[in-house]
């Protein structure tokens, strides 16, 4: 079986998620495993892929691949997959990888399964595991033909350095006109300031259920009373209610505190992947069907505006007492 893993890079480093997927593919045994790195000035950063199981790394080094945009990458990938006859192409979830995988599926008329958490071989064919419906069902999914495209959930696999050296294979770029139409105007890569929520024993996180940006005060007060940090969701960060540095989830921070209190958070998968490692999860949400209750140790159906201030008061009393 010939498998290709898309290796995403950022700041001159191959991303951990991609290397995790590469390691997983290597562990399947009888595979001809290659990686692919697409970018500008990336030849140097491709080699470490060998350590994680790739025997070859296809490298396309082209100025048109400087910005992390999906469409030009699809052009190059489609050619590599066709020319080299890959049976499967694997991706680790990211904003970029999801768009590439989806467009590649259309280009190659290939099946794409997403949000996968495991991969195996059954009767010589790949089979993957995908949690569905807010993770209440685990579905075994497969493909009816080649190439098989798979997008894995963030953090699905840890990289394991069990491999050796990889041979670098240069790939010449070639682009469709529409693929170069979108351009990156600006990239603002905010670094976080202040105490990190990643190091805190307690995280009290607020979501859109707080109803208004000023209501974050409720969450801040509770966090202060518990000696913890404040977290947030992408919905409130993108809406400008709270800073990006506090966002928990797939495109934010991954936290694993002793206690995580989710206030007015629906519990979307992309949020879950950033906090499911917490020891104890308490959720307050007025919707009894909110997905967050599926993975909370204590689920409280109720209004954050009524419950959180009272809780803060009680915690303060305890602490004083």
């Amino acid at each position, binding site marked *: 079986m010939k498998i290709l893993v898309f290796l995403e890079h950022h700041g001159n480093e191959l991303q951990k998620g991609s290397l995790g997927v590469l390691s997983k593919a290597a562990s399947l045994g009888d595979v001809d495993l290659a990686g692919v790195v697409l970018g500008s000035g990336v030849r140097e950063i491709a080699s470490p892929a060998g350590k994680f199981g790739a025997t070859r790394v296809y490298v396309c080094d082209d100025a048109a691949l400087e910005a992390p945009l999906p469409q030009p990458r699809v052009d190059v990938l489609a050619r590599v997959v066709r020319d080299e006859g890959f049976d499967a192409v694997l991706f680790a979830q990211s904003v970029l990888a999801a768009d590439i995988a989806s467009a590649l*599926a259309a280009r190659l008329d290939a099946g794409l399964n997403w949000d996968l958490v495991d991969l195996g071989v059954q009767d010589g064919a790949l089979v993957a595991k995908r949690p569905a419906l807010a993770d209440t069902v685990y579905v075994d999914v*497969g493909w009816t033909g080649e190439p098989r495209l798979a997008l894995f959930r963030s953090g699905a696999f840890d990289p394991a350095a069990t491999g050796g050296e990889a041979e670098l294979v240069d790939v010449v770029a070639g682009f469709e006109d529409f693929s170069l139409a979108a*351009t990156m105007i600006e*990239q603002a890569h905010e670094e976080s300031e202040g105490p990190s929520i990643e190091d805190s024993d307690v995280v009290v996180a607020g979501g859109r259920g707080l109803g208004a940006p000023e209501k974050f005060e409720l969450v801040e007060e509770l966090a202060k009373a518990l000696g913890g940090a404040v977290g947030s969701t992408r919905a409130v960060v993108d809406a400008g209610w709270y800073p990006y540095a506090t966002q928990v989830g797939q495109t934010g921070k991954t936290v694993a505190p002793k206690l995580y209190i989710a206030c007015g958070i629906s519990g979307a998968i992309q949020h879950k992947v950033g906090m499911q490692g917490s020891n104890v999860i308490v959720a307050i949400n007025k919707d009894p069907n909110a997905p967050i209750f599926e993975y909370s*140790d204590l689920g409280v*159906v109720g209004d954050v505006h009524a*419950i959180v201030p009272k809780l803060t008061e009680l*915690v303060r009393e305890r602490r004083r007492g």
Partner: protein
Amino acid sequence: MKIAVCVKQVPEGSRRIDAATKRLDRSGEGALNPYDAYAVEEALRLRDASGEGEVVVVSVGPASAADAIRKTLAMGADRAVLVSDDAAAGSDLVATSYVLANALERESSDLVVFGYQAADSDGAVLWAAVADRLRRPVVSQVAELRLESGRVRGKRQTEFGYDVIEAPLPAVVAVTDAINEPRYPSLKGIMGAKRKPQETLTLAELGIEAERAGEAGSRTVVLALNEPPSRGEARRIEDDGDAAARIVEFLLEKRLL
């Protein structure tokens, strides 16, 4: 300015997968995918800001999806096209994107707007496949959108911060649920929706071969349904005014206070 918005009807309330067909049970009540209301709202705002043009809603789904579509017309969309065909049931990404792209090609709009994700599939992927089929630039996950002199400019969040991406029209954009606050349909809007043009098309009417849609056109399969790994005991309480006290008890029991 002609804008097409892609919307989907999703099952309302608790969802289940039919053990026999291994497909999502779509027999119960359906509703407009909540994330798609933001896409409709953004399209309406762009239309109204430009002072002319139309917003056409395009959907692939069962005949019952007409209900969800009516909501978008009540919000203010001008017209709707629903592709509905038994042969399209069970379409995966490849098949859905093919059908949808064909329907969109027929409209040849300046802009195609997608929602954030379908609440039933959690895909957040369809737009890229459709854009590839339409051979148009795509800007995804847009939280702030601007349209100026024939170009769209979108700000979006990634794992590393924010990107600002620009593309010339005709283009495809997907917007997040942070981009606006969708309006509620007014009574007048609801009444008026009934009179707006609503077309239902079969695959044949779009010139789509049956083997490109539904299970025949799909390249992925569901093999088996399994129980999720168990998580140990989880407790659930309803707030009767004493929720705060009961959370404190719980935290004490877990030695977290």
